[in-house]
C-alpha cells in the first residue's frame, strides 16, 4: 500500500480536455450520419417503398369514356345501371358492348383489337376493377344513388371524362387496387374521390347521420357496410 504511486499523473490531468474534444467531433459525425440516415429512410419510405409496393397492370382494352358518353343517351346510367332488384350492374358485360360493336365502328387500334379478340371470339373482357372493395364490405349503389341522391363523381371522380383507361396499380401485399388507399402514400385527400377507405365511408356517414346505431362506439353500426 505504501509502495503505490500517486494515481493522479500530470498526463491524467490533460486527458479529460482531449476526450471532450474528440467527443464533440464524434458527436458531429453521429449527427451527420443521423441526418443522412434520416434522409435516406425518408427517400426509401416515401419514394422507393411506394414504387415497390404497387405493381402496374393495364386494362385488356383501353377504354375511351369521353367518346362513349357522347354516343349514349343516358350518361353513366346507360352502361352502369341499377337493376330492378336493387343490385348494381357494375362494369357492363360483352352483351352490352355487342349491341354496337358487332363489327368495328371506328378507326382506333384498340377497338379493332377488342372486336377481334373479344367480340368475335365471344369472350368476356377481364376488366380490372379500380374500386373493388375487400370481401367483408357491403356497398349499396341503390342507397347512395337513389336515396342519398349522390352523383357518380363524388366517389369515382372524373373517370367519365377520361380518354384512356388509367393504369391499374395493385398492392403487392394486400392485392387491393391503389384507388382504395389513394395515390398519396401519406393518405392526404384533396377530393372526395381520392380515397375509398373505411374512414372515408364513415366520415360521410357521421356527417350525414346515417345509421349511427352502434352501441359500442355510438357511431355507425357495423352491419351497415360490413357483411
Amino acid at each position: 500500500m505504501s509502495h503505490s504511486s500517486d494515481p493522479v499523473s500530470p498526463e491524467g490531468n490533460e486527458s479529460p480536455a482531449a476526450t471532450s474534444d474528440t467527443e464533440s467531433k464524434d458527436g458531429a459525425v453521429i449527427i451527420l450520419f443521423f441526418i443522412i440516415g434520416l434522409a435516406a429512410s425518408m427517400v426509401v419510405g416515401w419514394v422507393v417503398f411506394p414504387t415497390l409496393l404497387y405493381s402496374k397492370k393495364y386494362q385488356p382494352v383501353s377504354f375511351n369514356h369521353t367518346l362513349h358518353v357522347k354516343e349514349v343517351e343516358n350518361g353513366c346510367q346507360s352502361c352502369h345501371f341499377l337493376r330492378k332488384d336493387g343490385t348494381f350492374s357494375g362494369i357492363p358485360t360483352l352483351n352490352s358492348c355487342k349491341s354496337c360493336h358487332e363489327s368495328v365502328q371506328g378507326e382506333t387500334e384498340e377497338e379493332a383489337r377488342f372486336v377481334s379478340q373479344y367480340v368475335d371470339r365471344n369472350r368476356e373482357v377481364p376488366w380490372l376493377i379500380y374500386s373493388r372493395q375487400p370481401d367483408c364490405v357491403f356497398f349499396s349503389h341503390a342507397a347512395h344513388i337513389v336515396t342519398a341522391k349522390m352523383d357518380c363523381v363524388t366517389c369515382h371522380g372524373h373517370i367519365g371524362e377520361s380518354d384512356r383507361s388509367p393504369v391499374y396499380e395493385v398492392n403487392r401485399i394486400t392485392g387491393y387496387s391503389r384507388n382504395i388507399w389513394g395515390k398519396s402514400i401519406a393518405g392526404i385527400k384533396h377530393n372526395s374521390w381520392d380515397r375509398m377507405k373505411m374512414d372515408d365511408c364513415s366520415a360521410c356517414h357521421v356527417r350525414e347521420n346515417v345509421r349511427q346505431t352502434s352501441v359500442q362506439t355510438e357511431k355507425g353500426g357495423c352491419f351497415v357496410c360490413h357483411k
Partner: protein
Amino acid sequence: MKHVDSKAKKYGMVIDLDKCTGCGTCMVACMAENNVPFKKDETDKRLSITWMRVFKLTNGKPYPDNEICYLPRPCQHCEGQHTGHSPCVSVCPATATDYDSETGIVSQIYTRCFGCRYCMGACPYHARYFNWWDPVWPGEMEKYLNPDVSPRMRGVVEKCSFCYHRAQLAMEKAHVEGRKELKEKEYQTACTQACPAGAIVFGDLNNPEHEVHQVAQPDPHHHGRPKNPNAFRLLERLGTNTKVYYLSSREWVRRAGDNYLDSEGSASHE
C-alpha cells in the same frame, strides 16, 4: 344518436319445438348460406362450427315415460338489461362484435376480430365458434360460396348473423322502389325458409303486425319476457334478454330451457 328515418326494429325468432322434428335442415341451410367451413374429420364436435345447432333434450325418464325434444339453437342476439348490454358485446376488447340499436342484431366483423375468444367465454349459449384453421373447401366447392357473405380466416370468432346480408339485399330493392321499410317476408333467414316443418318464424318483435310478435307476445315492461304461456327463452333468469323465443306445450321442455334443477320451483314466466 337516433336515426330519424325509420322506427327501431328488433329482429327475432320464434321456434316451435312441438313442430321441430330434429331433421337438421336448418343446420344445412345455414352452413350453405353463410359459407360455414367444415373439416374432413368432423368427429370432434368441440371443433365443429355450427351457427345453427340442433340439440337433443330428454326428460331423463326410463321407457315408457321417456320423451325427447329437439332444440335448434342459433345466436340468441341478446339485448341484455339495457340496450346492447349483451354478454359478448360488453366484453369484446376489439369492438369486433357490436349491438345495433336499430335492428337489435349482434354483429360480428371478422376482419376486426383478433381471436381472443373472450366473447366465447362470455356467451352462455355456446353460440360462438373459433376458426382454428383456414377454411378449405373440397374440389370445385369454392365456386359455390355465397358472394353475399364474407368467408372467415383462421384465428377469428364467428357466429349466426340472422342472415343480415339478406336484409342488406332487401334494402337495396327497397331503395330502388323508394321505400324505407322492409316487408315482413322480404327479410327471412335461411333456416326459417328451409325448415320443412315450418317450426321457425322470423320477423320484427317490435312490430305488432309481424307473426313473431303475435306468437311470442314480448312484454316490454319485463325485458321482452314472453306473455304466451307456452313460450320461453333460454336461461331467462340470467337476464340476457334474448330475441329467440321457443314454444313448447310440454312443461319439462320449458323447464329444461331455463336449466332448472329438480329441487327448484317452476319456470320463471309462470
